[in-house]
């Protein structure tokens, strides 16, 4: 049922990525499941990361996680744990991994993978309900780095 035939499309899409970016298919996890290297090669911007986390069309992280620092955005969910203090509990490499594909470190987690383009069942074209013709990651490499940077500021 899983769709691997779309790898070609993913590769083509990756070809259009910015120079210096790591394409979703080329991301390297170390033996602990973390991703040490920056995906974009450009330092993350915490302020941009905060926008990604609250924007429903982007990360919408607060849909499932409470984040006290983002309390201006209404209605934080509680499907996932609170993210307060995550900057103390995880390294940037670990946070990057959890955002890219949380299932590497936490098998079976309900958390979606925000920088992955293959291995899906019945992937759709956005929220149209129609089949996807090509699959873009939910976030860009730089958006992932921006979120990693913002999460790093969340200290107890």
């Amino acid at each position, binding site marked *: 049922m899983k769709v691997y035939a779309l790898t070609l499309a993913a590769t083509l899409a990756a070809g259009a990525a910015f120079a210096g970016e790591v394409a979703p298919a080329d991301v390297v996890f170390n033996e602990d499941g973390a991703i040490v290297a920056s995906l974009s090669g450009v330092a993350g911007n915490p302020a941009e990361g905060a926008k990604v986390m609250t924007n429903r069309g982007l990360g919408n992280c607060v849909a499932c996680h409470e984040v006290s620092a983002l309390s201006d955005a209404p209605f934080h969910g509680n499907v996932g744990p609170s993210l307060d203090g995550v900057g103390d509990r995880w390294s940037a490499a670990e946070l990057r991994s959890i955002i890219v594909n949380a299932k590497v470190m936490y*098998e079976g987690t309900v958390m979606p993978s925000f920088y992955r383009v293959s291995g899906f069942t019945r992937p759709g074209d956005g929220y149209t309900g129609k089949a996807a013709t090509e699959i873009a990651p939910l976030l860009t490499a730089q958006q992932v780095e921006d979120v990693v940077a913002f999460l790093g500021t969340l200290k107890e």
Partner: protein
Amino acid sequence: MKFKALTAVAALMVAMPAITLADPDDDTLVLNGETEMVTKAAAPAHMEETGIDTVMSGWHFRNDDTQAMQADDFDNPGMLAVESAIEAWNTVEGEAGKSCASCHGAAEDSMKGIRAVYPKWNETAGELRTLAMQVNDCRTNQMKAEPYKYDSGPMAAMEALISVQSRGMPVNVAIDGPVQAIWEKGKELYYTRTGILELSCASCHEENYGNMIRADHLSQGQINGFPTYRLKNAKLNTVHGRFKGCVRDTRAETYKPGSEEFIALELYVASRGNGLSVEGPSVRN
């Protein structure tokens, strides 16, 4: 897989207090001040492996205003569809010159208990039939009329009229015998994580009922209240219409209303509500 998922959640929940704010409430649904409905029941035996011991109507997950709207037929917008379906019930359509009433008489008598046992195996046809399929079988074969579109307004209204006759009766769909293989298929679909977001029915409605996704209070995804009037789209919604919306929201290619997949899924999900009162037409967000 579920065990590992829970371990992960537990690991992530270090230093976080349990949130009980959004738990389902303990209110009692009394219809029209008369009929007390069973909105919580012991989970059916086949759910033992899920760890869920109580099945709950989605009614418990809605706010007081929405709950009250369903409790009084004069406030329940879904009852307007029932009114329109009564008219349709008595209207002759098709080349056979029949209405529903021509064969079935008064719906209040003939349709009592029907909703509670559907989807149901039809021995003559050798197929599992949803209520919608049965309505359309009558329309095409008995009335020689055009079938309703599977998840259309007229179909939802007719389902509401039929459901009303079973309100308060316990859902009791059969899952064994000739339908067992279909039930198993429905169960597999229930646990299949679809779309770019990789969410299954279970991701939200088994692992996370009671929790919030932004402002959405996740229920157990029970369908004993269908068809359901949703405040969100201000119309009566069919089970398959809702399934389609859920699958779409996982960023997946949906199945079609009336498809084999959704018929199987409807049987499985209905069976998770065995023991709950039929509520249709219910009112939800």
